[in-house]
């Protein structure tokens, strides 16, 4: 028998039955798209097309189209790369880490969060690939291909190469994890449908029949994938931080980077999950599944990771002073009070101060304020990467090479392209795939719905 606590809030409100769950989630897959969805898709595809021009120009002319110069060789491109990868982390954290901790509230949001991970990683992976300048020959530099095919073997001493392995493993394992979860739900839609829809979802459902034996294997696959994905997600952002930390640039060469980057990634990822979920629950009327309780729990994760990030910023400053290394000290003073002071203080305000507002229950249970703060956090996290990358590079060891970075229209355009891509993919997912994991939610209807708890 299920034991329920009278203290815990119900995870599903509105007295839903199993049939209601099937109906509420399948409805948006089967019905006509709403006006809001069509408008959203038009805007996203517009951004994709407009940004596509900048991408085409960059591919045609080369990365000279960007604002990079001899001193600042990494700027918006790598900032955007780290930003998107970071956003991706929340999906795996929700689906894998919260599964290991048996947190049932993950069930309503894991599907969409994993989709977000996959799309964010696609956007992220674009930047290092375009940054190669000639991506069509990039395979020679990025993949271990035989010497007779082109250049020498790749360099396994380089964290940039580790990144290739980390990001591609992360992408493919997340994709598989996500798809396994989708199979039973595709079967649900297949069994409700007729005609072409039955054929399409039938093909996607892989012949799922819901047998107890298959469910038992499914559960053990999900558990082990979660166990594999947990160290994987930590390794990915650790390796991204190695791109910086293993170099000898003041401001980058710090041992604090791996945990600090991972915390920052979870922080920005949860903020993006909130941005997306608040829109999705409204657009598809899922308020009974993604409740204020879910939003509040995610906000609590944001307070924790935001505070870790804040402590990391302060620790970096302290260690720079305590190390007694003059270039290191200069790099940090220059961050806060140099020509890019505004970026530094934008980061500090958005990432350290704004999430502390979530200590107030009124704020963390308010949908409007959560939505605004979730965007503020992601603006802050973009500035964090910009500050780390550009302000550390722009004044290097040789004052005669000091320079400033100014983005060109192509920099902005390629970034816009990834936004277009991300939201186009997410909106298509939200319309054509079941946006909430029906099977998992059904398994907690009896124990965690309002009817039982109250």
């Amino acid at each position, binding site marked *: *028998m*299920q034991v329920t606590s009278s203290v815990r809030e119900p995870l599903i409100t509105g007295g839903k*039955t*199993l*049939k209601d769950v*099937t109906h509420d989630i399948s409805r948006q897959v089967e019905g006509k798209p709403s006006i809001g969805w069509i408008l959203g898709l038009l805007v996203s595809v517009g951004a994709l097309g407009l940004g596509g021009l900048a991408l085409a120009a960059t591919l045609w002319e080369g990365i000279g189209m960007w604002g990079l110069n001899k001193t600042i060789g990494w700027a918006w491109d790598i900032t955007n790369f780290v930003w998107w990868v970071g956003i991706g982390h929340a999906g795996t954290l929700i689906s894998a880490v919260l599964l290991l901790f048996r947190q049932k509230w993950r069930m309503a949001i894991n599907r969409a969060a994993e989709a977000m991970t996959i799309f964010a990683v696609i956007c992220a992976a674009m930047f290092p690939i375009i940054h190669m300048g000639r991506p069509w020959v990039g395979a020679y530099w990025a993949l*271990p291909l035989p010497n007779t095919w082109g250049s*020498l*073997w*790749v*360099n*396994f*001493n380089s964290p940039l*190469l*580790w990144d290739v*392995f*980390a990001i591609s*493993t992360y992408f*493919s*394992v997340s994709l*598989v*994890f996500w798809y*396994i979860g989708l*199979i*039973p739900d595709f*079967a*649900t839609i297949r*069994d*409700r449908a007729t005609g072409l829809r039955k054929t399409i979802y*039938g*093909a996607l*459902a*892989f*012949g*799922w*029949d*819901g*047998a*107890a*034996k298959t*469910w*038992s*294997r*499914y*559960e*053990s*696959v999900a558990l*082990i*994938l979660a166990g*594999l*994905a947990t*160290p*994987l997600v930590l*390794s990915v952002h650790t390796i991204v931080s*190695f791109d910086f930390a293993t170099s000898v640039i003041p401001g980058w060469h710090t041992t604090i980077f791996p945990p600090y980057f991972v915390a920052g990634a979870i922080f920005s990822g949860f903020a993006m999950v909130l941005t997306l979920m608040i829109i999705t629950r409204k657009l598809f009327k899922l308020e009974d599944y993604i409740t204020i309780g879910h939003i509040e729990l995610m906000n609590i994760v944001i307070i924790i990771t935001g505070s870790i990030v804040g402590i990391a910023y302060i620790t970096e400053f302290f260690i720079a002073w305590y190390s007694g290394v003059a270039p290191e000290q200069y790099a940090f003073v220059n961050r806060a009070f140099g020509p890019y002071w505004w970026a530094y203080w934008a980061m500090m305000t958005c990432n350290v101060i704004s999430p502390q507002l979530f200590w107030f229950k009124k704020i963390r249970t308010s949908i409007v304020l959560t939505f605004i703060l979730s965007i503020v956090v992601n603006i802050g996290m973009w500035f964090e990467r910009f500050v780390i990358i550009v302000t550390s590079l722009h004044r290097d060891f040789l004052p005669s090479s000091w320079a400033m970075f100014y983005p060109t229209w192509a920099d902005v355009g390629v970034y816009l392209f990834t936004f277009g891509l991300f939201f186009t993919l997410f909106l298509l997912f939200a319309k054509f795939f079941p946006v909430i994991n029906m*099977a*998992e939610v*059904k*398994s907690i209807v*009896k124990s965690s719905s309002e009817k039982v708890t109250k």
Partner: protein
Amino acid sequence: MERDKNFILGVYDDEDVLLDAITKVRQSGVKIHEVYSPFPVHGIDDVLGYKRSKLPIAAFLFGMLGTSLALLMQFYMMKWDWPMIIGGKDYAGFPVFVPVTFELTVLLAAFGMVGVFFVSSNLKPWGQARIFDLRVTDDKHVMAIDLAVNSGMEEEKLAEVLKSSGASEVNKKSFE
């Protein structure tokens, strides 16, 4: 009567009733073909007497394969095939091989295990499910009993066992 053709189905509305029913049905000497559910029911493999899945072992073996291939690849490329001094480092400094080794271990473990899962559960693109009742992917649990396997018992008796175990409906299903 031929096996795997003619079934009697017990339809259950509630997972806890189902779990009790499985025990009752098995105690009365009926062999259950399989139980179909819209979601994973905890403890169902115990009452059905299923053994623990061996998928973790598959994952471990594939993971070990990933570890070995990754180390072999890196040592071969960096030390044996084309040794080069990069930044004054060792040709084959083991610590720098750890990240790629870890990633390939995870990659092969995940893909290998999922591959074994698909093959053992007969899941494939465009795979056709044998559907006993369309509602098993919606809101009902269905217990399928093969009439040929339980030929020692009369059909009415089987229906009676299912009914008394708490089934909300008892249906028949035949496949060609």
